[in-house]
């Protein structure tokens, strides 16, 4: 009985589902919004997609603290870099800075990250930086505990050169599927779309997401179905 309370002091971890995909003209980053300490959901509306610069964002998974501090360091480095460079930092530079901090502190950090953004040289780019600090540029990537349930999904539906609308719909569907099966993912789906015209944040509350297997349409109350035409929707 007591064991459930031990968890309240466990380190905050974002079980998480995070996704980054490129499309024709930019990138779409997506994430769930659940932060847990053990079995308790400490924050059901977290924002796991964090800004590094005007044109580069990062999806955070794993330890909440580690990923926040890492993002803060990289934001600071990029701020200085932008001043010295005289123009917006490229996505590649941002990703390499994240790799540098991640790799050099690999023994202490426990965070998997996805860096995504748009710059005038390479357009939309996505970089995956898993545990250990490997840096991999990819057309799309998934991360976090919820991603385990999405490998097969993406193997089947991924295609290059989607439109912005197709890409956003794909990301929302994917995060929603992961939330359905991963206890460590939940809440709302957030997306950030980045292209030459700038950055656009979208918010999809749970009730706007599709229903999957064995999930039921939400009701206000059982009593609503009692006032329907049939007498009593009870089974004996």
């Amino acid at each position, binding site marked *: 009985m007591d064991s459930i309370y031990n968890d309240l002091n466990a380190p905050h971890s974002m079980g998480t589902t995070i996704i980054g995909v490129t499309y024709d003209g930019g990138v779409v980053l997506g994430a769930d919004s659940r932060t847990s300490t053990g079995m308790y959901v400490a924050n059901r509306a977290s924002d796991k997609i964090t800004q590094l610069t005007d044109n580069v964002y990062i999806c955070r998974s794993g330890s909440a603290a580690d990923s926040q501090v890492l993002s803060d360091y990289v934001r600071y480095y990029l701020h200085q870099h932008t001043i010295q460079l005289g123009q917006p930092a490229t996505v590649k530079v941002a990703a390499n800075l994240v790799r540098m901090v991640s790799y050099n502190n690999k023994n202490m950090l426990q965070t998997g990250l996805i860096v995504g953004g748009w710059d005038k040289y390479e357009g939309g780019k996505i970089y995956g930086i*898993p*545990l*250990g600090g490997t840096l991999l540029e990819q057309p799309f990537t998934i991360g976090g505990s919820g991603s*385990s349930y999405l490998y097969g999904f993406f193997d089947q539906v991924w295609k290059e050169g989607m439109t912005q609308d197709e890409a956003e719909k794909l990301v929302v569907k994917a995060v929603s599927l992961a939330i359905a099966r991963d206890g460590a993912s939940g809440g709302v789906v957030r997306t950030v779309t980045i292209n030459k015209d700038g950055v656009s944040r979208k918010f999809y509350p749970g009730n706007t997401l599709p229903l999957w297997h064995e999930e039921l349409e939400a009701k206000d109350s059982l009593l609503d179905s009692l006032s329907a035409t049939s007498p009593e929707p009870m089974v004996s």
Partner: protein
Amino acid sequence: MMNLADSAPATNNMLGSEADSQRTLYPYVTGTSVIGIKYKDGLLFAADMGGSYGSTLRYKSVERLKSVGKHSVIGASGEISDFQEIMRYLDELILFDNMWDDGNSLGPKEVHNYLTRVMYNRRNKFNPLWNSLVLGGIKNGKKYLGTVSMIGVHYEDDHVATGFGNHLARPILRDEWHENLTYEEGVKLLEKCMRVLLYRDRSAVNKLQIAKITEEGFTVSEPYSLKTSWDFNAFKNPTLDAEGSW
């Protein structure tokens, strides 16, 4: 074996200061076997493009064969982030070598020696680069092929391999390798080895590259996949003579 939800790393530093030596305890994203052979005109290497994350075949487009300067090729298995760091060291090494602008350039023997020193010294500090490397090349007509492990074990031979390749590929190579293999024979031999690895190594993926280095320079093939054979009666009816077995 690898507990991804493990919070152990956060507690390791409890007894020491931040200045304590780092130590790589375990790899995360890993590449499997690399094979290298000498042939008539130079050297050939093969490696698949897999990056495993524990038992998950997570990444399938990881380039594990890279050129080093004008004369050498490196292939890496083990932790990919450490291989990327090794490439940064090597790129710097080659850059400084070029900056001398003295007409000399580091050959495979020198690069192999450099890597050996790096790997062994890291091992002595209990902070290894978690890789097994194949290093080969040709300079002034002399072919060189060597390997270095994460603990600094190093040697040269006519054919080398890392990981599972040592157990599955090298016996084939001991049998069928000879001097003066043509390019075609060499590629076929490597493909024979890679096919066996594909059948028998759980972390192998069916997408590979073959790299070649000759006096003319370095080339690496476009990624491609190997055909496999499963159409055997013994496979269709494996328990014919032994009902209940598998």
